[in-house]
């Protein structure tokens, strides 16, 4: 079937079963994927972010157990994405359902398979990860986009099981975003019409990412230009929003991201196939697509999709320190254990919990049973959360800045910073 696939001795040995049945099956999956993707070579990979640890039914558990019992063990760093439940405080939040039990069992199986159990959708916030030019395997859509764009590590979006197979064998099909030709920018987003004052706001990056996701199609976008000082949270916001709203797996921020020091380099010397102006009108439309609810009382404020960063905690704490969240409103902050522990060292977790916030680790408010019962209005600072929640959770969403979310949590109803939105109303 894939007579044209060149396998080195290492891969051929795995395929023949010389390294046991687990690696044999894993290499069969990688080989089949290479054929489906039209790849004629495999490329060694140095890092994997495993998405198959997120429970999606019994087949996930059976697959992980099969691999474990067949002797599988990750030989490259393999970090875990969110689980469906939190392993730290399940008594509070997790109903004793088959789903919660299966989710916990699955997470424990990936720990036994040798994963580093970071349980985060933002693994790039942790030290020791991949660097520019590394070939890696990632499945979580925001992390695929962030690693490609902001780090310059190379990954396609790997679906469940194939992420595990590539991680276990240490090889992936050499195609798409693993190749130079597959990474060059194709479509140019011109931001020169956007006022500089708006470009300093956190909402800008979420709205820009959403618009790019809606407009880029299958083409790789480049943003001309992105502030050279735009921080990691800004790049996270663009990555997550563009991936959610349109499936963007790689993008360039000209003047900011590592493969785009200038327009020439980003486009590999070629002309953009299309130029798209970013205007106040397009950003207003993106804003409307992230808000399904009118202003009013808020049942929940959801922060941290993707996981809240150390710098986001630093921004949030002064907004809530010494204040009290409205008793009718829940404020959830999803983050990783790593970032939570760093924030705790500064006393920030204490301060936020005293204000009435709940910190959720290992999982996400978006998936967690924590929000299953919520049917009211939700406010979030995350485009990704706002994009998916109305369809998948059946809640009404208001998108706002971090400061608006904090103030809304205290007041118990949507609060708007009129200055912020003057240009976008």
């Amino acid at each position: 079937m894939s007579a044209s696939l060149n396998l080195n001795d290492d891969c051929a040995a795995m395929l023949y079963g010389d390294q046991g049945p687990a690696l044999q099956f894993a290499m069969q999956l990688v080989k089949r994927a290479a054929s489906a993707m039209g790849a004629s070579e495999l490329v060694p990979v140095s890092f994997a972010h495993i998405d198959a640890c997120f429970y999606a039914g019994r087949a996930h558990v059976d697959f992980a157990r099969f691999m474990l019992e067949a002797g599988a063990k990750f030989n490259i760093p393999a970090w875990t994405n969110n689980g469906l439940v939190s392993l730290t405080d399940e008594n509070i939040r997790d109903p004793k359902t088959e789903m919660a039990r299966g989710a916990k069992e699955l997470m424990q199986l990936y720990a036994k398979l040798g994963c580093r159990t970071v349980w985060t959708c933002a693994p790039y916030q942790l030290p020791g990860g991949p660097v520019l030019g590394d070939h890696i395997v990632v499945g979580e859509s925001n992390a695929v986009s962030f690693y490609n764009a902001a780090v310059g590590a190379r990954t396609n979006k790997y679906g469940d099981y194939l992420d595990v197979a590539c991680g276990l064998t240490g090889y992936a099909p050499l195609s798409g975003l693993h190749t130079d030709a597959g990474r060059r920018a194709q479509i140019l987003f011109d931001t020169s019409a956007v006022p500089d004052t708006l470009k300093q706001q956190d909402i800008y990056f979420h709205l820009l990412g959403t618009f790019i996701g809606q407009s880029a199609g299958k083409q790789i976008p480049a943003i001309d230009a992105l502030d050279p000082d735009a921080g990691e949270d800004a790049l996270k916001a663009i990555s997550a929003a563009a991936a959610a709203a349109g499936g963007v797996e790689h993008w360039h921020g000209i003047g900011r991201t590592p493969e785009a020091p200038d327009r020439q380099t980003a486009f590999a010397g070629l002309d953009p196939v299309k130029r798209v102006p970013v205007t106040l009108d397009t950003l207003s439309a993106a804003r409307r697509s992230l808000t399904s609810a009118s202003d009013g009382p808020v049942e929940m404020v959801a922060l941290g999709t993707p996981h809240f960063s150390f710098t986001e905690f630093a921004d949030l704490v002064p907004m809530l320190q010494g204040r009290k969240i409205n008793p009718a409103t829940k404020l959830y902050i999803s983050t990783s254990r790593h970032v939570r522990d760093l924030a705790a060292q500064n006393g920030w977790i204490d301060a936020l919990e005293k204000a009435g916030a709940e910190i959720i680790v290992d999982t996400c408010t978006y998936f967690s049973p924590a929000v299953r019962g919520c049917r009211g209005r939700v406010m979030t600072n995350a485009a990704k959360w706002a994009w998916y929640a109305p369809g998948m959770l059946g809640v009404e969403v208001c998108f706002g800045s971090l400061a608006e979310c904090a103030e809304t949590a205290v007041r118990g109803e949507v609060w708007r910073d009129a200055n912020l939105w003057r240009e976008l109303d």
Partner: protein
Amino acid sequence: MAVLQARVLYEGTADGPVLWLDEPLSFWGGFDPATGIIVDNNHPQNGKCLTGTILVLPGTRGSGGTPGGVAEAIRLGTAPRAVIMQAGDANVMIGAAVAEKLYGLICPVLELSGAGFASLRHAGQASVTSEGQIIV
């Protein structure tokens, strides 16, 4: 009778009624493996049951969760008998491969581009051979 030659992504034989989807589908989030029913409110065939069909669709979209949705549906017996995509990708095939390994259940996956694909739109019944022939 017409015979169409497809590219085999996962081999197997099947026959059954053709179900044509107008748009790509995500098998995680857009499809419920417990019932075999499309649950994506934005999909034109929302509410249709895929169980037991020869499923013909443009491709998959969205989440990398599709392999898990496919494998789970095959495990539960709610899956299509075969999947024919205009733009093949690894995701459905990986789900089928894992399901055969774990449960011994086979769901062939084929890619059929060009004019042959459109000709399936109004097909009633189809059968699939392990060499990738689709007999309508």
